[in-house]
């Protein structure tokens, strides 16, 4: 399952991020590591981008970006 498929309020655990480009580096820098717990806060009015919470902060990312993050729901 990938991050963009989660529903608002769902919590999940990051399993892997595909690729080695700048997007991946940025997500990693922002703390989206393997094993990290995240929660989907919601989606923007037009369905994209989405907002997630991890640790003590919130990130917004586009669905195409979220699709690169595979997660396991908890």
């Amino acid at each position: 399952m990938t991050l963009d498929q989660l529903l608002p309020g769902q919590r999940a655990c990051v399993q892997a991020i595909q690729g080695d480009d700048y997007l991946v580096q940025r997500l990693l820098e922002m703390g989206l590591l393997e094993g990290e717990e995240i929660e989907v806060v919601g989606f923007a009015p037009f369905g994209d981008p989405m907002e997630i919470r991890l640790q003590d902060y919130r990130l917004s990312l586009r669905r195409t970006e979220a699709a690169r993050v595979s997660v396991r729901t908890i």
Partner: protein
Amino acid sequence: MVLVRTPTVVLVGNPNTGKTTLFNALAGMNQRVGNYPGVTVETKKGRFRFQDETFELIDLPGTYSLAPRSPDEMLAVELILGQPPAESRPDVVVAIVDASNLDRNLYLVTQVLELGVPVVVALNMMDVAAKQGITIDAKQLAGNLGVPVVPMQANKGLGVFELKTAIARAKNSPPCPQFPVFPEAFEREVQALSESVGSQVPPFLVRRLLLDIGGYTERFLDGEKNGLANRVNAARQRLQQAGCPVPAIEARTRYGWIRSATADCIQRPPHRPVTMTDRLDRILTHKIWGLLIFLVLMFLVFESIFFWAKPIMELIDQGKDKLADLVKGIMAPGALRSLLADGVIAGVGSVIVFLPQILILFAFIAFLEDCGYMARAAFLMDKIMSRCGLNGKSFIPLLSSVACAVPGIMATRVIENRRDRLATILVAPLMSCSARLPVYLVLIGAFLTRGFPWWVPGLTLFAMYAIGLVVAPLVALVLKRTLLRGETPVFVMEMPLYKRPSLRLVWRRMLEAGWMFVRRAGTIILASMIVVWALLYFPSRAPNGESYDVLTAKLEERLDEKQKMEKARADFQNELDLLENGMPEPIPNRKRSLNEAITELDKDLAELENAQDELNQLQRDWKGRSILGQMGKALEPVVEPLGWDWRIGMAAIASFPAREVFVGTMGIIYNQGRGDSKDPEFRSSLGNAIKEARWDADPERNVFTIPVALSVMVFFALCCQCASTLAVIRRETNSWRWPIFTFVYMTVLAYLGALITYQVGSLLI
């Protein structure tokens, strides 16, 4: 003589950590903004004194990581490493971190620790952390990190003294002893690479070369040369096999180190409390309420720059005219008077006239940014803006450009991605700004009002606005696929906590924006105004050798005289009327002498009857013979396919300083005198005059037809006849390349648009 070097302190930190507030708290009013060559970001510099010593303070743009992707981001690394363009290494780096979000903020700190300079950590926003039930043992943290940690609340000024003390102490201490240790396999590769790039390259850059795939370091170190790129790739592959994949290895190593460094000094509540941000976000990013509130806010922003600024702008305009009249009153006619009144004062006025809009827009932007809403606005609008290759943060700059591109382009500073920012800057002038309105109104009023259904004028005006709205996204798309091509910009954006905005910060940013505009763009605008003034002024003598200025002054004097006579005649006539109606004569034979005086005045007035026409004719001859007029004539073959004669061409060139000048210039050319483009009466009389205009070569043929009027309007919808916009692009991109590019592409677009409009229009109508 001993040269005492001022110790330098560099301030780094993530966005939204209160970095600007801390900078202001340290430097006070003592600050200035600087540009380094080749980069578009600004670095703020300031000074502070502590214990009889002066410190130079440099504020770097907020960043999450020191992995440079562009020259802009490289600047931060270069400054700290002491590479050019900076001369020497900073003595201390202050890393500001948000205590309520410690781990993520420490990521950047671990990179700074590797740079081999003394570091002080400013642990800011302790109050926000406390509110969330987070407690941090700063002493313990300092011990674990190996650098001083100062708990602070920069917005209240708490901890500033302690920070200064820590800076003064750190200045002479050795660089940080500890930082994250990468796996041995990685260090081996760094060692090997170091040997091949040479010892003059700092180890930090070698690590970046290995870690940042497609990063700026590859270009910076000339990665293509000597097969360096191949060696780096091979190293990355070996690391992958050794279980240290790039780039994941960096985050793993750093966050691993951070977790163990913070484990025993931070306490979080077992359950995260529901914060104000949670509650606010539920409304402000809501599918319906969020959008509604956003629309209301944007309406307010637009209203304010479009309408609230208007009265102030009109006052500035009037003040400018008064001052010009004053100068004309006390100086003798001549080049100097004209330069002052028509060049300098008009130029300075047209710089200051932008200030109300800039100040108001920046007050809004600073307010929205400081309270945390800006990220939400970008979140809400991203989907729409991404359709044309931009992102959510381009929305406010483009919306503002509908009022005026100058504040709009300045507002692109909120866009971090360089390519997205450039694309937004380059298309912003296509949005139909308020300076185009007078041009539309004259032409629509003259050609598309009488004899047309009621909806035609409105629809035409709407179509002119729609041109910008349609063309701008298309151009943005094309630019993002050609000139500004590159990997899809990463949108990932932090949604900061909401907080009460600091009015002092808002005030400061507003003034900064205004001052920057006046100082950097103002000079260019003024210069271009003076150039166009000179092109319209010279040659300043009529063929018979007389000075146009003197001739104009003489005619203006006669006009004054005429007005006085007309007034006197009216007074006499009044008195006469009263006497005729049976009032007793106060003086004998009063009626007769009044009659005589009126006859006398009528005779004089008859002589002066054509003074206004003569003045208009003189102005028209002068401008026709001016350098610009000659340029217009020379360019007639170029503008003829658009249906224009040389006069329209010349007026279009003369409007380079600002589009609305077109209307005034047309007024001169078409014998209506120098009118005010905002005066409806002037516009309608000008409209009537241009309807009558005929071609020089063919007096039977009207110059203006509906296709010509449309072609002029389309030209002005698409062209970049606005020196202020170009000046501000030059300022914001720190290069002449982009304003020149904007001018060229928009002029080509405008020409083609006008050409198609005229050619197709002539076939249809």
